[in-house]
């Protein structure tokens, strides 16, 4: 009989992985390549509105979308929350605010981090600007985060 004691429970580290690589295709790949080059691209829908980040299809009509257009690198916060204790996997390395940001020239907001001192510096409607990472590889974290406009 094994005694019912936690000291008898064998323990081993377990790392969950997704050990596949994927090609990102012309739309997602186009956006990520743009980030590497320091540009932000959005996807133009049939009704003329622009989604950023770009989807490969229109979420309402399901039409395929292939036209990418360059949009602005500053935008407006539409909602936010304060992430006071960065979680270990997050790429920001410091306390930050999560925010949905509608970039100039886009009609839909994207999720990213905003670097400010604390939640008192955040508000819906505030203007923020992209802060690029020095070394970029075609990844959403090529944008290090956003900073209040005028503080870049």
């Amino acid at each position: 009989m094994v005694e019912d004691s936690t000291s008898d429970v064998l323990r081993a580290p377990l790392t969950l992985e997704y050990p596949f690589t994927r090609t990102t295709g012309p739309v997602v790949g186009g956006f990520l390549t743009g980030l590497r080059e320091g540009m932000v691209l959005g996807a133009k829908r049939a009704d003329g509105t622009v989604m950023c980040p770009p989807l490969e299809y229109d979420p309402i009509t399901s039409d395929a979308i292939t036209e990418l257009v360059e949009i602005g690198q500053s935008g407006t916060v539409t909602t936010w929350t304060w992430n006071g204790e960065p979680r270990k996997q997050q790429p920001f390395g410091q306390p930050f605010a999560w925010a949905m940001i509608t970039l100039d020239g886009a009609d839909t907001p994207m999720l990213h981090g905003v670097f400010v001192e604390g939640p008192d510096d955040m508000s819906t409607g505030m203007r923020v600007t992209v802060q690029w990472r020095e070394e970029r590889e075609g990844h959403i974290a090529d944008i290090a985060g956003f900073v209040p406009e005028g503080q870049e």
Partner: protein
Amino acid sequence: MRDIAVVASMQRQEPSIDNESEVEYMVPLMHGVKESIGITQADVGFTCSGSSDFIAGQAFSFVMTVDGANPVPPISESHVEMDGAWALYEAWVKMQMGEVDIALIYGYSKSSGGSLRDVLATQMDPYYVAPLWPDAFAIEALAARQMIESGKVSLERLAEVASRSREHAANNPHAVRTAQKSVADIMAESPIMDPLRPSDIPASADGGCALILAAGDRAKELCERPAWIKGIDHRTDAHTLGVRDLTTSMSARIAGEKAGVGNDKVDFAELYAPFTTSEVLLTDALGLGDDTVINPSGGTLGAHTMMASGLIRIAEAAQRITNGDGDRAVATAGSGPNLQQNLVCVLEGE
């Protein structure tokens, strides 16, 4: 359409189930629910389950649980990597085809082994969102602020939802968050993820639920007052947060209409609403009024077992109908960030 009803259910939820594997704690539920109405696996025409390898930390983890169902001689079974409520939906469709009269459905997870709020980041868009690892509380907080700033809800109303859920949970032996808190107490809580407070977030639990569906006369033989499924439908919103209006739930509204929620009065509703904000979205989307008792079990603010909470909502609603506490109920299940996907089930007693 065939008449199909919930005739029995059994659940277990605890803050943390230590020293028992998912299989070990599910076997007593899977067999207990059959024994409670005097049937065996040989009477079951279809077995269907819902669980998650990402939470179990193991590929094909559900296969070992199927082994616990007594699958010899071979049984007809299926699994969804979703809440058990979608396993129930698959079984309901199979029963509509007329070849099965009794189905066993179960859903479960043991999320206490990891950090569920972080594991849930893996369900986000893999290119644009998941690499940033927004945890589940942060994602809901973004919607909560929009709901508050647009005037859709107030912090006071959210506190009322949380306080009432605790009050109801106190009468539920399976609830894990039963300490009573007044609206004023909750208003005084410090945010865990601004504007969400500790009482606004789900009461995480380990556990599972097993449930039996039966058709027509078989249901009447097995249960004195079966809870008949009068309507069931599920819909999904877009995956990308930025293209959705996070202050409404289009998928819940459409599923509610298709399931016929508004066709008659609703005595009570068991809503899969992990956050207080989710409950406000759902009551609005389903058009539930003040004459409907919301979450008499305490809901997922009383106990939230990922992959089973939706099935448990159906089980709770059905049990109340069987007990004669009401005649018509709505149960919902949800999945994805900000209630991206919603299943709505209307249950009635005769």
